[in-house]
């Protein structure tokens, strides 16, 4: 239990916070913004390493457990994210990069043992690509705590769905990611220039849908299939929320409204998960 808490939560949060602080130097308001653009991707990926080690041993290549591909795909996504954040690629190149990353994830995260593997690969690729592009667009549109807060809520929602589906490991990893995004929220509140930037989008897009779909493929719960799809695509709602124009409101009020809009799919998925669990509570003596 101590290992789960220290390695699975405390250490990832410290790693994430340290990386963001070193990169952005938020105590210096005059620090160049460009200096921290790499931080979002690196912070989330670096935090993922101890979080993964808390639930499983680091896998070899190729991993014998399909979902363990995440351990390798997250660093790859971080690399792609840093490249995306630091270089101003033409839009078609960026879209192509997101599609390529999504395609690799779809192929590797959906094993041949999954029922209807190819349709699920198509769904996984689509969701990862949509989340990557949407979060990227939202990151470019709004500074401050709005985006990390929306993503934090999405990660928490994914964690609840995964916990309800009986995948405690996946739920824990999603929860750890929510905690790390919480760090980004605090830092962005302090210094609105501090951002996950575009780089973080690639890591979020691989990790959250990857966890949710992997949890679905090995689950035995009665939670409907569409709940997993909605939970996986939930981070993408940060973009339409960021498009909402709110004038005459204070900054925190506008942030609250946009985050609430982005959290609508999370509210649906969490509600359906809880209702499903209540309905199947024939066995309430086993909380885990």
């Amino acid at each position, binding site marked *: *239990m*101590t*290992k*789960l808490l220290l390695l699975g939560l405390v250490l990832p949060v410290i790693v994430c916070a340290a990386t963001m602080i070193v990169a952005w130097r938020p105590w210096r308001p005059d620090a160049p913004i460009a200096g921290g653009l790499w931080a979002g991707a690196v912070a989330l990926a670096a935090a993922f390493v101890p979080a993964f080690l808390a*639930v*499983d*041993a680091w896998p070899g290549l190729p991993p*014998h*457990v*399909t*979902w363990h591909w995440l351990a390798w795909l997250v660093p790859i996504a971080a690399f792609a994210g840093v490249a995306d954040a630091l270089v101003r690629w033409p839009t078609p190149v960026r879209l192509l990069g997101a599609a390529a990353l999504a395609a690799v994830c779809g192929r590797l995260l959906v*094993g041949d*043992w*999954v029922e209807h593997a190819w349709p699920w690969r198509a769904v996984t690729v689509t969701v990862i690509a949509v989340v990557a592009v949407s979060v990227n667009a939202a990151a470019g549109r709004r500074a401050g705590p709005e985006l990390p807060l929306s993503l934090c809520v999405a990660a928490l929602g994914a964690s609840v769905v995964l916990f309800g*589906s*009986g*995948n*405690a*490991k*996946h739920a824990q990893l999603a929860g750890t990611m929510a905690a790390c995004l919480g760090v980004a929220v605090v830092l962005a509140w302090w210094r609105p220039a501090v951002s996950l930037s575009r780089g973080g989008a690639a890591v979020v897009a691989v990790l959250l849908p990857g966890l949710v779909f*992997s*949890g679905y*493929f*090995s*689950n*035995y*719960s009665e939670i409907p299939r569409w709940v997993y799809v909605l939970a996986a695509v939930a981070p993408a709602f940060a973009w339409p929320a960021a498009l909402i124009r709110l004038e005459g409101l204070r900054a925190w009020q506008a942030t609250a409204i946009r985050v609430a809009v982005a959290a609508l799919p999370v509210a649906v998925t969490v509600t359906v998960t809880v209702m499903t669990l209540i309905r199947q509570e*024939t*066995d309430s*003596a*086993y909380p*885990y």
Partner: protein
Amino acid sequence: MKSRIAFVTLAMLACLATAALYPTARAQDATTSADEAAWFAVDPVHSAMIFSINHLGVSIFYGRINNPTGGFRLNHGDPGASSFTISAKTENVDTNSANRDKHIKSSDFFDAKQFPDLTFKSTAVTRSGKTTFAVTGDLTMHGVTKPISIVIEHIGEKQTRMGYRSGFTTNFTIRRSDFGMGYMVGMLGDEVTLMIGIEGIKE
């Protein structure tokens, strides 16, 4: 008259020979086998795989994996010719709690959809006692194969109303973390003891 005596004598000899060759209904003791080359298919209804694990450091919890399959050959005269292949579906885990069964089958433990089978295949068998055999083999679980050594005890074999049957039992302990199932060690023990009783029907 002579031919009648010869016929009766031949008939008696034939009866004796038939009686001697016909498989006896009497039980073999566990140190011998009526047919050393026979293969016995596991009878899932009369076989059991029970596991026990420490729970929270306060108790020992028991569960089972229903309907094992496979088969075995037990050769007392030439133990090296013996062979054991025992399998079970991880889907068949049964702990008397539907929610717990779902959890054990999930990716936290068995990952039963990706790794549906649990298998033991012997690689070497030697006699270790009057009714016991030291069996070395490969245990595959959660996609990981590890060599293990166990001792099996032959309980007996005989002709029954349900066919010619033979059976054995074994107890052994493994570490689940060796098979990539190390989640929640502390709350649940790492060591899992398996108690297996197998009854086979001669094929």
